[in-house]
């Protein structure tokens, strides 16, 4: 009996567990009487005062959110600022366009006229203008009246510069046919080929390269003069060299004496300022 009773207890508990499990499965499916009974039980409702408090808080918050959600372009200040910026931009654009129009309407001298140095064979101390007929001829030759980049002759006449005698006596580097072809070539107008009605030489042109060569030669000559090699006579050079030697030897008093003598003897001769500085105060 004891054995039987011992065996029956777990069996009954197992049966109960199985019943519980079946009840639970039915409950999960929503077919339990437990759910039906609970649904019939009165469920308490929150008081109306509480509802009103909560809903008023919600409305207040929503109005705040609406204010925040207003986009920047919907704000009056942003509108005003946008209009102001747009107007300013339009004004600036118009002014720029106007300035460009005015600028294009201005008269410009031709580039070659501005950059060309004209020389007149009739040497005068001050620059003078070419006769009108010569200017007309040149303008026709270039054929650039419609070039907006160039000034008109009347408003900005090309300067006429005096030419040195050595240039006048020289033959032109570029031959006349070549010059005719190279109308845009910058150069110096020389007057050794044509004469006008007044009997003056009409200037002819010299290429830029030739001018540069001449300038370079002049520069070399000047540098030689600055070296004082050919500028002074032998005696003068000898004296100056002697002064320099004395300075190198540190005999400044003797060098000063010789320099004084040189100045008395040749008062108009310039002295190398480096030499004077070495003997300062002189």
């Amino acid at each position, binding site marked *: 009996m004891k054995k039987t009773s011992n065996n029956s207890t777990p069996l009954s508990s197992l049966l109960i567990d199985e*019943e*519980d499990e*079946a*009840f*639970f499965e*039915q*409950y999960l499916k929503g077919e*339990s*009487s*437990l*759910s039906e*009974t*609970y*649904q*019939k*039980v*009165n*469920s*308490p*409702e*929150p*008081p109306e005062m*509480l*509802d009103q*408090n*909560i*809903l008023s*808080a*919600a*409305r207040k*918050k*929503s*109005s705040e*959110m*609406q204010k925040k*959600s207003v986009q920047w372009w919907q704000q009056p200040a942003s509108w005003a600022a946008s209009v102001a910026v747009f107007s300013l931009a339009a004004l600036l654009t118009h002014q720029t366009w106007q300035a460009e129009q005015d600028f294009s309407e201005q008269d410009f001298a031709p580039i070659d006229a501005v950059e060309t140095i004209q020389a007149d064979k009739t040497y005068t101390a001050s620059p003078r203008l070419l006769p009108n007929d010569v200017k007309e001829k040149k303008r026709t030759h270039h054929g650039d009246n419609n070039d907006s980049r160039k000034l008109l002759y009347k408003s900005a006449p090309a300067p006429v510069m005096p030419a040195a005698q050595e240039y006048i006596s020289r033959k032109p580097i570029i031959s006349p046919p070549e010059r005719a072809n190279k109308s845009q070539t910058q150069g110096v107008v020389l007057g050794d080929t044509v004469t006008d009605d007044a009997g003056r030489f009409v200037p002819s042109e010299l290429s830029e390269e030739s001018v540069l060569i001449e300038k370079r030669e002049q520069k070399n000559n000047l540098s030689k003069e600055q070296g004082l090699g050919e500028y002074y006579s032998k005696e003068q050079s000898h004296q100056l060299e002697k002064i320099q030697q004395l300075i190198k030897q540190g005999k400044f008093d003797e060098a000063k004496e010789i320099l004084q003598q040189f100045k008395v003897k040749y008062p108009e001769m310039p002295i190398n300022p480096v030499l004077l500085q070495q003997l300062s105060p002189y």
Partner: protein
Amino acid sequence: MGKNAADEQLIQFYQKGDSEAFELLYARYKSAIYHYFFRQVHSKDTADELHQDVWLNIIKSSSRFTQQSSFKTWLYKIAHNRLVDHYRQSSRQPLYLVKTDTQNGVSDEKIEIEKAIESSALESNEPEMTIQEQQVSHLLLQGINDLPEEQREVFLLHEKSGLTLQEIALVTDSSFESTKSRLRYAIKKLRHHMNLVLTL
């Protein structure tokens, strides 16, 4: 925006400043949330306080709601957290503040629970409820009240709020298996508590 709009749509409208959307949401869930608190704390005043706190929190943090989870889960998660906070505060409450009936040795809280159960059983949703049905309701409410807090919470969320076991697991930060196990124990206890009246 219709009345049949989804919860997530309504909260989106409210995020854009539509207060009517919130009113619809509140109407949908106010009873369930209040019921959840009332059955857990057995005090009308405390339930009022917790209910208000939860909804004000929803209003305040509505902009932080993302569509990653459902609104329902989010709402009950906030409610669950508030309830946990309430339990923590209650456990820290000094003992001398807890009023007890010295003569009978029964606390005021217990009396209040009994009153709540009785009033709930009497004020049924169905007016033509018989006395026997009222007794059954009373017995059921007593059984629910006797459940451990965790099992009671799972039962209330499943039964009244209509949350699935998966959603309850999310709300209570538990695994699915433990949630199911809690509900199984809760149903088993209630069944045995009402063994005389309940049938399959």
